[in-house]
């Protein structure tokens, strides 16, 4: 498992500060996203996870500092060019009523098509591949509103995959999904990294889920990086105490050998 370095390749943030009005959300952020890995952004509510993800995706411009993509600032990148290199899936996206899976996935080709451009064979092939990767080919003609939450999330991921970007940013892709659907989405992510060499960054809420699946973890508190590295390096009870103010003990997952965080009861159980 490689450590992140400022290699100039891939996505990184240099001394980034972001504020909404007068509220500083993120400050002094230096972050390098390891290429070809699954990075999980974790931290309590309001720690700036989503803001950082949006900044990495070019949706929020930093007040100071730069986001670099392969060594060049993304601020000067045309939006379509950016969308051909970095895909971002927002949290809980909404689709118009009656939109089918195919029609949704086809939208992912937008950045590849010139104005007035016709639908090309590459477009069709990219959509087919995205549907196959997400196992949605059998549901292609179904309207999104008739699908389960997990299927719908896979359809949105398929749209982002049709963009054919090397880097994918996912904002809380498992929130609001039940356990089976969460596993479905997490396994899709690890599969995309393992077999397609994608670089994926996801904001996750579940620490244990993140530790089990992610190659690299970034733990945030109040807009700053508290710890980053492998799950074993990040998931320590000291870090958990520091960031979440929760006392915990860390054990190793008997199935995967990754750390599992067990929060301690606030009061010792009475016996």
């Amino acid at each position: 498992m490689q450590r992140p370095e400022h290699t100039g390749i891939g996505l990184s943030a240099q001394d980034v500060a972001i504020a909404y009005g007068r509220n500083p959300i993120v400050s002094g952020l230096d972050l390098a996203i390891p290429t070809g890995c699954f990075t999980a952004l974790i931290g309590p509510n309001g720690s700036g996870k989503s803001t950082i993800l949006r900044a990495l995706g070019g949706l929020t411009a930093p007040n100071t500092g730069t986001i670099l993509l392969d060594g060049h600032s993304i601020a000067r990148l045309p939006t379509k060019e950016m969308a051909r290199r970095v895909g971002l899936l927002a949290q809980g996206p909404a689709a118009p009523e009656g939109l089918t899976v195919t029609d949704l996935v086809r939208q992912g080709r937008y950045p590849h098509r010139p104005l007035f451009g016709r639908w090309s064979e590459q477009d069709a092939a990219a959509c087919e591949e995205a549907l196959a990767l997400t196992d949605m080919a059998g549901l292609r003609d179904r309207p999104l509103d008739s699908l389960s939450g997990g299927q719908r999330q896979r359809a949105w991921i398929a749209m982002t995959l049709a963009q054919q970007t090397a880097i994918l940013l996912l904002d809380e892709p498992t929130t609001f999904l039940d356990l089976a659907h969460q596993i479905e989405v997490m396994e899709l992510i690890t599969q995309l990294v393992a077999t397609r060499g994608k670089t994926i960054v996801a904001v996750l809420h579940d620490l244990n889920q993140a530790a089990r699946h992610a190659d690299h973890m970034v733990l945030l508190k109040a807009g700053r990086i508290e710890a980053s590295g492998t799950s074993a390096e990040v998931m320590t009870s000291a870090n958990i105490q520091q960031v979440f103010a929760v006392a915990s003990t860390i054990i190793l997952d008997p199935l995967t050998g990754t750390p599992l965080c067990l929060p301690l009861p606030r009061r010792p159980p009475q016996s």
Partner: protein
Amino acid sequence: MRRVILLLMVLLMALATASLSHGDYPVPWRELVDVLMGRPGASPQAQMAVLDLRLPRLLLALLVGAALATAGAIVQAVMRNPLAEPGILGINAGAGLAAMVLLVALSGLSPAWLPLAGFAGAAAMAGLIYALAWRGGTSSLRIILIGIGLGSVAGAGATLLTAFGEIRDVQRAMIWLAGSVHHADWQTVETLAVWIALPLALTLAIAGELDVIRFGDAPARSLGQRVQLARALLIVLCTLLSGAAVAVAGLIGFIGLIAPHMARRLVGPTHWRLLPVAAFTGAALLAAADLLGRTIIAPAQIPAGVVTAMIGAPFFAYLLWGRRHAAA
């Protein structure tokens, strides 16, 4: 898709035949064919009724209906609101106020300026709403809120003028505002056709922008859309289309709201299918409304705008009722 278009074509043909043959001077369909084919058999009365009166009126209704429906489809996607219609951009309020000012406050001027004043009012209002909603960029919500605010200001201005104006002028203005195609002539038809041809074609050519912008600003941007630019361009197209429709026909409500909804039920929400079907639907709706309005209590005529409102409101309620079991 092809079946739906075919069905709408058949419906339009039936409507056209009915519109051209029905009226004070009924023209049987055999004679109608003679007139339209330019064969000598038809009587001069039939020729005049069909070619000079009913055909331009029918064509105007079709064009206005198509323009309003397309404008409605644009505004519903840009505002990401299924209840939006071109009126949200201040088109109706601006045109209404301009017409009132022209007919009531400046009653010396010729009513021939009416279409121009109507269009200018609509465009000025849309521009003002867009400018006021700008704060380093616009958002759909700000446009809607400012549109509602300015719309009621313009409405108050128009009401003020009616309260103090000459009663005859006010009545003329009210008749224009009611929205109708009864004064159609060939020149109006030609002007409108030329005017809306380019915006209609351009809208269809960039249907993909509508598909993307309706996801919301952030998702659209992460797909690579220059959202502010696309929104501004689409608002201009919508203003050109609905402003022109208002200028020649006055305020005709509900077509811009209902036609895109019907089209969505027929062919789904993707715009390269939705836009043409919505245009055909809007054209058929307005032609039907006009036919109904001039035959139901003939020889008196109900303005088409009144008919669309009377049919439109219950129809809209029916649409919502039909969807009450649909998944949220």
